[in-house]
């Protein structure tokens, strides 16, 4: 599988873009709408003109037409051929490559089995659900055994449950294939789950390329930090394993019990939306529950950010405006702070 290098590429919003995607890695591109993510995929696949150069395995493919680049694409709108049934959609690339009929049938059948869509072979795209359509589109893009796979928001416009289900399947399929993959999404959580490395695009430029871990602990600038959600980074002064999979960490006056499989934790990143605030004592045990003083309240469009001092630390919490309106918070007031455990990230000692 090739590595991909973009050298000084310009197209639409992208100006002088440089980046390298490593062989067999799952490279996730995140960014807001209009950041240039889809343009990046179009440049790599060759379906659009561009300035600059794209190299695959060190060889320029600028003059190579899309059909010869060995790139499989899952377009954002999927672009399943509406006049072909599921089988013919998946077989299209193989037939275009002049593959023998019996081989086409065998390959399509195995792909349908892998994506668990055998029962849909005779159906037309408009009769399928969103999740089924995505599976068919993915099978179609994989059918000609591409060297590079480009996926443009494959889980968007699906309900949360279906998206999660498809995401898990995608991770399995991609890891199994060991294919160089560029995966575009605007969902950072998804990027974290799926990517070997993440690139954040903003206004056509790449702001940061790093491992998911470094995105949270070492954002290179304010923009990345803002996109990541300005996590609260807590340095741990002490940490000990309580039981298998459970660690107690101490940071100044804060003591927390966290699910963790390693030995000890040096640092914790807590996303602001993982901090729950309440003006009344929450029910249940006092585990990971603290009292703090409200320092600052900032109203954004749909959310409200509240800075709270807890045990000598300043934590940033973010909550939906509707949730904020249901509690009574004001500067200087005491508040209960609960750390949720779902999306914490750790640095091991």
């Amino acid at each position, binding site marked *: 599988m090739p590595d991909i290098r973009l050298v000084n590429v310009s197209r639409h919003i992208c100006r002088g873009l440089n980046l390298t995607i490593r062989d067999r890695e799952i490279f996730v591109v995140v960014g807001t709408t209009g950041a240039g993510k889809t343009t990046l995929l179009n440049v790599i*696949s060759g*379906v659009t003109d561009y300035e600059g150069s794209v190299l695959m395995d060190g060889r320029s493919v600028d003059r190579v037409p899309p059909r*010869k680049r060995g790139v*499989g*694409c899952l*377009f954002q709108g999927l672009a399943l051929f509406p006049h072909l049934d599921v089988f013919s959609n998946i077989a299209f690339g193989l037939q275009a490559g002049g593959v023998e009929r019996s081989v086409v049938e065998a390959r399509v059948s195995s792909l349908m089995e892998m994506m668990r869509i055998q029962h849909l072979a005779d159906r*037309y*795209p*408009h009769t399928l659900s969103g999740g089924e359509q995505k599976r068919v589109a993915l099978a179609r893009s994989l059918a000609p055994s591409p060297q590079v796979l480009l996926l443009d928001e494959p889980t968007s416009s699906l309900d949360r449950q279906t998206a999660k289900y498809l995401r898990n399947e995608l991770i399995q399929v991609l890891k199994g294939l060991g294919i160089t993959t560029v995966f575009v999404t605007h969902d950072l959580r998804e990027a974290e789950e799926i990517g070997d490395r993440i690139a954040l695009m903003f206004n056509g430029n790449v702001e940061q390329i790093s491992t998911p871990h470094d995105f949270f602990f070492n954002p290179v600038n304010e923009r990345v930090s803002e996109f990541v959600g300005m996590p609260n980074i807590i340095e741990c002064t002490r940490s000990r394993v309580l039981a298998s999979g459970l660690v107690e960490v101490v940071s100044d006056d804060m003591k927390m019990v966290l699910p963790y499989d390693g030995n000890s934790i040096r640092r914790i990143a807590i996303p602001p939306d993982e901090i729950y605030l309440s003006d009344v004592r929450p029910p249940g045990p006092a585990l990971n529950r603290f009292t703090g003083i409200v320092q600052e309240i900032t109203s954004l469009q749909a959310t409200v950010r509240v800075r709270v001092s807890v045990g000598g630390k300043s934590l940033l919490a973010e909550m939906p405006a509707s949730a904020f309106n249901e509690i009574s918070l004001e500067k200087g007031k005491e508040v209960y702070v609960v750390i949720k455990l779902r999306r914490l990230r750790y640095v091991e000692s």
Partner: protein
Amino acid sequence: MEAVWGVFPVLVFLAIWEIVGRLHLFPGQSFFPTFSAVLREFYHLTANGVLGKNFLSSLTRVLIGLSSGSIAGIFMGVLMGWRHIIDKAFNPIISLFYPIPALGWLPLLMLWIGINELLPITIIFICSFFPVVYNTATGIRSVDRRYIQAAETLGASNMRILFKVVIPLALPNIFTGLRLEAGMSWRVLIAAEMVAIPTGIGALLMQAESLVRVDIIIVCLIVLSGMCFIFEKVFALAERRLAGRWSAHA
């Protein structure tokens, strides 16, 4: 039940026609024959072969003119829709000739071709060619670019993309042109036959007019109406078979 509601008004219309004809409300019974008299004349014209002979002449002209005009129109429309340079070259000419009514060519063609079988066929060719070019080119051009890009990345050659993706997706547009022209070709033919050709349903109409045979005129009109209807339905059926499963969702 729906079919009954569709047939019912027709039956009422025919009944009123028959009654009004029998009441002799119009001066001179031959100017307003009853429905039964028209049916009798229909049978008579069919039995003596006059209607069949003229109908076959007209049908042959329509089939040759429409099929050659449509095939040429589709070919030209595909080229113009697929290749921008061809569109650029031919669009001004097509735009110039497209608005001219097919019958407007009649005097010129009478002088160039003469009064023979080629004249009505040429008129029908012109009548079908330009609209089919226009609809086909529009259909090809309006195929969503994403489907073409998808086919490109799947390794398809230009020809494969054209024949396996673009033309099939343009079928609804192409058939719209064909369906409209299928009926229109009969209307144009009848007009041409009335003016310049001595055989065919149009010519039979003119002979009936000169003999003040309103019943024959009505028989010819019914045949014309029936053929327009049947031709349009045939193309609608073909469209449904080829693109009906998916065209509404493309």
